[in-house]
């Protein structure tokens, strides 16, 4: 197992997700900036005798509040993501981990005209694992599927007799690009670190990541 590969991938993954979130925060700030600017414009126009429409003011206030909530949500996600690197081994609920990952990856997916759907059971799916490495490998799987131009990818966590598994269901065939070896060394290194197994079922459009009960 190459810890050098894992560390390099980890930094790239962290950087990519952080950049994506900071980009979205910038968008929220840009809207707040324009809304504040428009309020200023209305004030200047009011000083010149043009009446202000109270409905417009209400809409602008609502827009500002919406964007503040959006930015706050993004910062909370970034904070949760950052803390997922705190513990090398942790008991996690896969439902929560996947919720976080999907919320982080939804915009990069949208940029590729795709959507990520989370299909969660009504009970927790507990696992003992390295949360950050798990998020990293799942992102690499998603990145692979999205590169294959899949419009919708479902993520489904499940309890199995020997541990847990995450099914990624799309409509994909292998190999998407014959030159693209998958899983490559980086995915293999992460799989080994997580003591996980990957099954690829191109006929039914599934990738399945299985994790053992005992890490």
């Amino acid at each position, binding site marked *: 197992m190459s810890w050098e590969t894992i560390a390099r991938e980890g930094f790239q993954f962290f950087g990519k997700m952080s950049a994506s979130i900071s*980009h979205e925060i*910038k*968008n929220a700030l*840009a*809207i707040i900036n*324009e809304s504040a*600017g428009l309020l200023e*414009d209305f004030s200047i126009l009011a000083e010149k005798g043009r009446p202000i429409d109270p409905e417009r003011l209400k809409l602008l206030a609502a827009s500002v509040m919406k964007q503040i909530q959006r930015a706050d949500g993004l910062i909370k996600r970034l904070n949760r993501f950052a803390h997922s690197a705190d513990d090398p081994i942790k008991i996690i609920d896969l439902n929560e981990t996947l919720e976080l990952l999907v919320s982080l990856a939804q915009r990069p997916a949208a940029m590729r005209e795709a959507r990520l759907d989370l299909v969660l059971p009504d009970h927790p799916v507990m696992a003992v694992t390295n949360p950050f490495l798990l998020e990293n490998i799942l992102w690499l799987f998603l990145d692979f599927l999205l590169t294959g131009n899949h419009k919708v990818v479902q993520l489904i966590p499940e309890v199995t007799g020997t541990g847990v598994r995450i099914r990624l269901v799309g409509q994909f065939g292998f190999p998407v690009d014959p030159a693209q070896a998958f899983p490559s060394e980086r995915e293999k290194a992460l799989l080994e670190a997580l003591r996980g197994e990957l099954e690829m079922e191109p006929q039914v459009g599934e990738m399945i990541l299985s994790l053992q009960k005992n890490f």
Partner: protein
Amino acid sequence: MRILLVDDEAELVSTLAERLSFRGIEADWVTSGEEALKQVEKQRYDIAVLDVKMPRISGLALKKLLEEKDPQLKFIFLTGHGSEEDFAIGSAEAGEAYYLIKPVDLNLLIEKLKEIIRT
């Protein structure tokens, strides 16, 4: 001067368009590259202000497509990138176009618009 604003954040471009109109600049807005390509067939614009990161057609790809439809059209890019390095890379890719970082300074945008029109 008539400009076209293109950004997938509708609230951003609609507000920006209204603020520009208060300053005597006619600005239409759309929220995707596809809409922008249709819009330039209906209306001639002096400058297109494009968000860099948009679903399906990125700002840089859209610039090339719009140039094919109207070789006279000039461009300004809006980006959420925060670093000087990103800015430099983007500027190089965008050729002669200008880059502005979000949140946009409206006075700077107007200054750039006027500068492009003058040249």
